[in-house]
């Protein structure tokens, strides 16, 4: 007997929607999330920051889902990390508050979301340089804003959202937009999506207008970005310009977090439009593992509305597979979330084309540090690749990239792209880094504490 019918990893829009739907279908559901509160990235700390005028308007749409999730009857464990998963046996190892615990589930849904694409530029290891998403997290969780000249460099919807949020909080940043694709070129790839996606498009345009109204200065076509300073960032420079800078926020879009899906050996496919890997999955999130499904931005970037719809679909599929939902009912129930997901994804081809990462971000100049943990430059990786390192796993032996504490979470895309560049391969031809458990560090103390509690509970 398993402890749970469905174990959901991640309480973002995908995980919350999956839990609500699975409970409606009568499943016994566990939800674990590393964060202290539900919401995921988009609605992080939503309940606490909704009254903040800087982020409130963007957070409000998530409150009904969070309330439904809180009331759905799932066993929700906050501040709990999945650090090992055995997909064959359905055994999950969880860590929380200094101890670890093992639970079993008949089906597992990875709704682990996205991370910011690494933006390796010269000087990006200097204190004061961080991800745009990081600044947004500080704003959502603590109401905190940067002091002094703030520069937001990169491209994508999140750049405009954060520019507006910072401006609302009284610290309008300078935006250095790195977009290289023209609007006309992106429109040519948009297909019919512009019509179906016009709601989202209108929102994006109004965000840009609000940025301008609130005094956000924008410089477009920025290339050759670098952070400069002695012991922290003092200026940001680019081809033909520079500006004083106390906080530099970088953003080139988000990519699926594939750390867990890779570690458990799921099949992945290269997504050329989004320049990233994603786990291979069917319409309902079912993967190459008989027990494990994926949903949300961790399965391919689609935004929170698509993530919520995918969560529902994965929950319905779980209910069908576990015998809680007949084929007929399944066919009826999936219609609405399938349509919702289609609508939410309509604008994606346009956005993916418009905000395609420039080559300099994927394969940075030689002097740039690519692996922050072991301080390995792009040049050193190019040399190792030329000497014969055919993939990130071999490169570890040459340079220790991927062996630091982040286990390659940050450097893997850059390392693979550099190897592909040097060896003349397509991105998907470079064998990917295979992370290992524990996915997050677990101390001997934690293991001992759980062993002790096991002993005490033994008869």
């Amino acid at each position, binding site marked *: 007997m398993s402890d749970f019918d469905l174990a959901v990893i991640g309480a973002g829009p995908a995980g919350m929607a999956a839990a609500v739907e699975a409970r409606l279908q009568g499943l016994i559901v566990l939800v674990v999330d*590393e*964060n*202290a*509160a539900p919401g995921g*990235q988009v609605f992080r*700390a939503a309940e*606490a*920051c909704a*009254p*903040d*005028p*800087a982020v409130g308007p963007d957070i409000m749409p998530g409150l009904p889902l969070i309330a439904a999730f809180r009331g759905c009857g799932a066993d929700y464990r906050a*501040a709990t*990390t999945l650090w090992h998963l055995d997909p064959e046996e359905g055994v999950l190892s969880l860590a929380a508050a200094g101890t670890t615990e093992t639970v079993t589930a008949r089906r597992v849904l990875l709704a682990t979301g996205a*991370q*910011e694409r690494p933006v390796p530029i010269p000087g990006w*290891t200097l*204190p*004061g*340089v*961080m*991800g745009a*998403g*990081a*600044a947004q*997290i*500080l704003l959502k*969780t*603590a*109401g*905190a*804003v*940067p*002091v*002094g000249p703030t520069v937001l460099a990169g491209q994508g919807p999140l750049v405009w959202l954060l520019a507006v949020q910072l401006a609302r*909080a009284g610290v309008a940043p300078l935006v250095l937009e790195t977009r290289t694709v023209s609007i006309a070129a992106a429109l040519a790839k948009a297909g019919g999506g512009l019509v179906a996606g016009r709601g989202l498009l209108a929102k994006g345009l109004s965000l840009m207008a609000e940025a301008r109204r609130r005094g956000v200065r924008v410089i477009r076509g920025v290339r050759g970005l670098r952070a400069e300073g002695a*012991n*922290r960032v003092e200026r940001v420079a680019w081809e033909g310009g520079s500006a004083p800078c*106390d*906080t530099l926020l970088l953003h080139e879009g988000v990519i699926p*977090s594939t750390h867990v899906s890779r570690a458990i050996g799921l099949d992945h496919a290269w997504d050329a439009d989004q320049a990233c890997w994603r786990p291979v999955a069917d319409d309902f999130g079912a993967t190459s593992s008989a027990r494990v499904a994926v949903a949300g931005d961790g399965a391919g970037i689609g935004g929170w509305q698509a993530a919520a719809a995918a969560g529902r679909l994965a929950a319905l599929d779980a209910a069908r597979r576990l015998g809680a939902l007949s084929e007929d009912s399944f066919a009826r129930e999936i219609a609405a979330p399938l349509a919702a997901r289609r609508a939410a994804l309509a604008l994606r081809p346009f956005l993916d084309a418009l905000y395609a990462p420039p080559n300099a971000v994927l394969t940075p100049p030689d002097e740039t540090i690519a692996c*922050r*943990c*072991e*301080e390995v430059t792009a040049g050193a990786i190019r040399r190792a690749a030329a000497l014969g390192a055919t993939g990130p796993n071999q490169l570890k032996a040459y340079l220790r990239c991927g062996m*630091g*504490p*982040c286990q390659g*979470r*940050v450097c893997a895309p850059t390392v693979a792209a550099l190897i592909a560049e040097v060896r003349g391969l397509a991105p998907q031809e470079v064998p990917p880094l295979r992370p290992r458990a*524990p996915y*997050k*560090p*677990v*101390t*001997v*103390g934690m293991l001992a504490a759980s062993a002790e509690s096991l002993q005490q509970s033994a008869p």
Partner: protein
Amino acid sequence: MFRARPEVRPATVEVLVEGTPVLVPEGATAAAAVLLAGLPAIRETPVTGSPRLPLCQMGVCFDCLAEIDGIPNRQACMVTVVPGMRIARQHGAREALR
């Protein structure tokens, strides 16, 4: 440097950053407390000794590993503050145990 906005999120939780008391809003993480305290770095790299501050704030980069309440190698961005929490820069290697 970062600052709190007490008008929207009152700073009510007192923590110790490198032994100095700092008031931070409820819900902030230990990594946020380090930035609000204005520390120039949370750690020095083992290879070249260069200073670092948190990069991602969401558990990806491990650039925030710190000693929290005496336990080293904790991802400061994943730990929510509680009153009296002791947050300190990590001395020596930050090899995560695994």
